[in-house]
């Protein structure tokens, strides 16, 4: 048994601290490896289908892992209010991934012991539980939230991980999301993504005079707040790699231009001033650079901006529309869409603008490419025969798989682990202006578990944050 810090531990900068003790467990790692091979096999199977039948929308099937998540207990050993909240948040997170099944606590044979006592596994194996999460949570005399947890592998009857810490009670949801991430990581081998946020465009008003505001929320829809008033049209927000800044398109003074918004201070800054319109911003992986499009005289090219000096370098030079650029996670390449070949298709190039190569050759038009944080695939929007699709392809354009379809689906954004995509779907509008509902959805990249993300009003242009620091 080895103790040590887990990778994303203990950085609750604003609200508290959570430190972790991790335990290595070979048998579980092997189990996970097997599960993973199974997932990959499913992925390949659907891939083969996609190739034989181009417009097959992948719908993977995954057997969710049953876990028992007990309400966290107070000092007296009975579930506390904060403990119930934490258990519920963790359960909701894990279930939302589609990879877990949370066993109803009504089925529990006996209440779980405190996290520092080994559980009686005989009470858990009959429920089919693979994992058991128990914990304690209470507010101490100083009003601080004290949390401890332990995750057990019920099958091998061994401890997987445990940890704890204290936090401002306002950080309760984040603490719970972090614990959910630890459970997710132990059982899937992937990095978690629950301690993340979404920035998006909230929409209201009639279709021809839509009011659009930047809005911000946790990935599960909680802690929602608006970042702009709606006086100016705003579009396409994107997080910086530290999630502390948002680049977006702002029509302030009817001059569409890329702006930066500081999430903490709320301060906004116009990024440069150009003869034409600047738009389609995305940060480079180290946060020092940003790529965007500049449109002038009917041509749209891609430029890179050094943020410290706001100096720009032109990367593409063609009379065509070159837009929606996205860096590879190592910053060495850029994928973008261009109509230089006559219709909208995807191209890659080195980040200095050399080595341009068309990668999409399927039927229809391709747009909004976004490089996966894992680096191996690219998500995109495809338009074909009056329908829109969200899909993924390898970085050389092979292995296209379509995951979601609709009258209008657009703007995929990656969860930081590269396992889940979020996008928006818009319903058709009638002549009288009825319909047009626009909502955020997310889907597992194997094409299953499509779920609506609940927002207070209509929503579009989502951007998923990196894991919070």
């Amino acid at each position: 048994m080895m103790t040590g810090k887990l990778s994303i531990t203990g950085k609750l900068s604003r609200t508290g601290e959570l430190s972790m003790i991790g335990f290595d467990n070979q048998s579980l790692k092997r189990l996970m490896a097997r599960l993973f091979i199974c997932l990959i096999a499913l992925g390949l199977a659907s891939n083969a289908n996609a190739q034989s039948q181009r417009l097959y929308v992948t719908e993977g099937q995954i057997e969710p892992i049953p876990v028992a998540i007990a309400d966290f207990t107070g000092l007296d050993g009975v579930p506390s209010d904060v403990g119930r909240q934490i258990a519920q948040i963790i359960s909701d997170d894990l279930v939302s991934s589609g990879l877990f099944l949370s066993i109803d606590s009504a089925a529990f044979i006996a209440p779980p012991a405190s996290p520092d006592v080994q559980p009686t596994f005989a009470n858990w194996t009959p429920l089919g539980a693979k994992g058991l999460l128990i914990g304690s949570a209470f507010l101490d005399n100083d009003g601080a939230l004290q949390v401890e947890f332990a995750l057990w592998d019920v099958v091998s009857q061994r401890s997987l991980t445990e940890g704890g810490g204290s936090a401002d009670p306002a950080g309760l949801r984040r603490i719970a999301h972090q614990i959910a991430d630890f459970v997710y990581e132990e059982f899937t081998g992937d990095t978690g993504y629950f301690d993340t946020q979404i920035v998006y465009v909230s929409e209201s008003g009639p279709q021809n005079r839509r009011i659009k505001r930047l809005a911000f929320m946790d990935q599960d829809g909680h802690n929602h707040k608006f970042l702009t008033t709606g006086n100016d049209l705003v579009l396409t927000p994107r997080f910086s790699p530290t999630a502390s800044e948002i680049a977006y398109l702002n029509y302030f003074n009817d001059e569409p231009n890329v702006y930066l918004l500081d999430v903490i201070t709320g301060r906004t800054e116009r990024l440069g001033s150009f003869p034409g319109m600047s738009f389609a911003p995305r940060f480079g992986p180290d946060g020092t650079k940003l790529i965007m499009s500049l449109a002038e005289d009917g041509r749209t090219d891609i430029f890179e901006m050094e943020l410290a000096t706001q100096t720009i370098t032109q990367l593409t030079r063609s009379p065509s529309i070159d837009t929606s650029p996205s860096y590879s996670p190592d910053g060495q390449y850029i994928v973008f869409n261009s109509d230089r070949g006559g219709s909208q298709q995807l191209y890659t190039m080195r980040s200095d603008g050399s080595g341009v190569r068309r990668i999409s050759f399927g039927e229809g038009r391709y747009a909004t490419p976004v490089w996966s944080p894992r680096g191996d695939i690219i998500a995109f929007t495809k338009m074909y025969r009056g329908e829109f699709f969200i899909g993924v392809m390898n970085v050389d354009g092979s292995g296209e798989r379509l995951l979601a379809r609709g009258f209008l689906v657009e703007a995929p954004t990656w969860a930081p682990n590269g396992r889940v995509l979020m996008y928006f779907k818009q319903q058709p509008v009638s002549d009288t202006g009825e319909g047009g509902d626009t909502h955020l959805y997310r889907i597992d990249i194997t094409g299953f578990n499509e779920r609506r993300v609940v927002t207070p009003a209509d929503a579009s242009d989502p951007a998923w944050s990196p894991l919070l620091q």
Partner: protein
Amino acid sequence: MIKRIFTLVAAIALLAACETASTTDSSATGSTTSVATSGTSTASSTTAATTSDEAADPAEVMKKEFTKVGTTVLFDFDSSQLSDYARRVLDRQAAFLKAEPAARIILGGHADERGTREYNLALGERRAAAARDYLVAKGVNAARIRIISYGKERPAAVGSNEAAWRLNRRAESMLN
């Protein structure tokens, strides 16, 4: 000929839609008046005889006159090619701008909803630039025209159907 009439009808429907869209508080009376205005513009373009009733705000009068010239040109799907009809509308705009040397315009480029947001922003810019370039070629000083793209953000016609999409693929001139 049949095609031309159809375009004209479409443009009129569009004018009505634009007027409604640009009215800040679209009161019922406001939109009715604007429909009436575009109705007169049909009359003027065919019979060339109109009388403007009372001399109101000169800026408003000029706006009305400009509306009669035709403020909007339409484009094919994913195209920024000016049709013959669009060129004639722009010819009249150029003549108007030459007759009113103090007038400046904002040329808004738009796209239908059947494209992705960022590409449509670029496409709207390309359409506005195509209309601007034509006006400049007809002798209008480029400094008097500002172009702006709205992509698919400001449709003139509401509805997810070919008729609405057609009207939304446009470049729209407004007096500044």
